[in-house]
Every structure is written in C-alpha cells, then in structure tokens.
C-alpha cells in the first residue's frame, strides 16, 4: 500500500505530464468544419414544403454514420467529389465491408442519396 501511495505521489509530482496533456487539448479546439465533406441536413431539407421531422432525424443519423463510422477506416471523403455512378459502386462495397446495422445502413443510404440529389439540383 505504501508502495502504491509513493508511486501515485511520484506521478503527481511530474507536472510536465499535465502540461503535455493541456497542449494536446488546445490542439483539439481547432475543430474543423465537415460541412464541405458531408453537407448539414438543413441544406438538404431547405425546400421541403412540410416539416418532416422523421426525415430530418434519419438524415442526421445518416450524416453521423458517414462521419463517425466511415472514419474508423479512412478520413471521410467529400460526398460530392464522386459521381452518382461512383457511389453506385462505393456504397455497396463499403456497406459489405462494415458491420453497420440495417438501420444505420438505411440512414446512410438515405443521407448520401439526398446529398447527391442536392448536387444534381445545384448542377442542373
């Protein structure tokens, strides 16, 4: 027990360790915006005639799947950097390789398709 107390005291005396942690935390404050990569849901439902909260919630979940689950393996790529045809291959391949639940998969598909539609509307 005395050993343990001595060890804890030894650690606490090393304040430099805490300094390093503080530097790292400040780095995290420089948060980036991922809106360019995965447009926020507000952009996707802007033209909706009726307030469809269920659709908004599903799109929000889909966006989080895109940003959180997909980034477990790679940095999220801008959705609109790839064509509809590209996504026709990418989505099935990625979904096959991940362990997404059926709900997450449906939300992800819905979100990506909505973003692609947004891109098509903007181009057309």
């Amino acid at each position: 027990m005395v050993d343990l107390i001595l060890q804890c005291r030894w650690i606490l005396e090393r304040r430099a360790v805490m300094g390093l942690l503080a530097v790292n935390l400040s780095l995290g404050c420089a948060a980036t915006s991922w809106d360019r990569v995965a447009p926020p849901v507000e952009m996707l439902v802007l033209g909706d005639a009726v307030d469809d909260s269920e659709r908004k919630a599903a799109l929000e979940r889909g966006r989080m799947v895109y940003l959180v689950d997909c980034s477990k393996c790679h940095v999220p790529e801008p959705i609109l950097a790839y064509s509809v045809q590209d996504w026709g291959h990418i989505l099935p391949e990625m979904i096959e390789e991940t362990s997404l639940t059926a709900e997450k998969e449906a939300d992800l598909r819905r979100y990506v398709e909505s973003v692609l539609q947004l891109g098509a509307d903007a181009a057309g």
Partner: protein
Amino acid sequence: MSLPLFIRLLVILAVFTVSRTGLADQGMWTYLKTVNVHAPGEMEYEQYVTAKWDYDDDDDGKYRFDFRHEFEFGITDNFQMAVYLADWRVKHSDSSGTITEFRTSALEFKYKFSDPVTDPIGFAGYGEFKIGSEKFALEGKALFQKTIDRWNFGYNFVLEAEWEDNGANGARYVNSKGKIANYLGIAYQVVPSFSVGAEILAITPIPDWAGTDTTRFYAGPALSYRGRGWHITTTFEVGLNRVPGVERFQLRTIFGIDF
C-alpha cells in the same frame, strides 16, 4: 501460460468469433493507438512484429524480434476489448546465442468518449493487463486524436507499472518498475486506402519508482495500406539519443485481418 488458461482464452475467442466481414481500423501508426473502436460484433486479428537492433553497449551482435498475436472485438458502439494470446520474443547475441522467450498474455480494454471527427477532440481511455510467468504489468493510456481534412493528429500518454523476476522461496514478481511514455503522431491520407505519417516516441523508464532513467527518443516514418478486409502498417523508428543497452533502431509492422 498454463494450459487451462490457454483453453479458456480459446473458448472466449470462439464465443466472440462471428462470421462477419468488417473493415480494418484506421491503423495509421504502430506505436500510437487511435481513438476509434470496432463496431459491435466486429473482430480483427492483428499480428505484430517488432525488430530491434544496434545496441550501444557492446559489440555482441545483439538483435531482437518481438511478436504479438492480438484479437480485437467490438463490444458496443464505444467499447472494445482485445486478447493478446501471446507476447513472445527471439533474442540473439553472439555470446548467448539465440533465445526464444514467452513473455505475457494480456487483456486490453478501450472506451471511446469522444470522436476525432465530430467532436473538438477525440478521446479514449485504455487499459491493459499483462501476465506471464515472470512478469505482471498494468498499463493505462489516454488516447487523443483529431482529424482535420485529410490529416490525423494523435497523442498517447502512457503509464505502465510492471512487476517482474522471481525471487527465492517461490516469491514472484519481486522487482517493481514503471514507465512513462508520450507518443505523438501525424498522418496524411493520400487516398482512402493509403496514408503516410510519422511517429515520435519519448519513453522514460522509472526503475524501482525511485527516479527516472534517461528518456529515450525515437522518430520515424509510418506507412499504412488498407485492402478489403486487411491492412498493413509499418513504422521505422530511429533513436535520437544513444542510451547504453537500448536499441537504436526499431521496425514495427502490424498486419491485420478482419473476420
């Protein structure tokens, strides 16, 4: 490791082994741990090989290979655990010849508190319990990671307490020592399947918890490639300061396969 314990580990593996495909984790570095965890039900096997050479204290032709066989399991959206079936090594010196040693088996736990993409900073807590016939160790890590565009920045703070060597009259783990380590990493994703980066390590041994030995600094490049259902990551670390009895070069490769 006793046979019953080994059998128990196999049973645990069998329970958790499910026939699913899954992507490899980010794996941009080999010494730094990333914040992300596997999805529930995902399992991954990782094979570690670490070569260490160029010791400064003699001309005895020393080199060493460390091996680790690790299974990682996703338990919940934020929690994963891992089993190290065996950490073992092959040591060589001209005077002693080549020696193969089993060191430890281990359990590892990681809990993700925040995400490196959607939160200001990603943070996870990590614990590891190692046990072997001549060594028992507890290791805690605070894992930080931030993803900014195609860049990933990582930092690990590591604290390890270790008891090893057996004494007279059956006494076990008679020598206690510690280690503090700070790992910094940066990685750039060239394409989704390939990233380049670097890792910097600062390792400070604490013999007998009475004072610190010379901190060992290493730095070197990291390369990572990810295929469908597998990944490979290699880091080459060069010692920035020479410490007697400590290797100057380390080359670590992790090969992962998903189930």
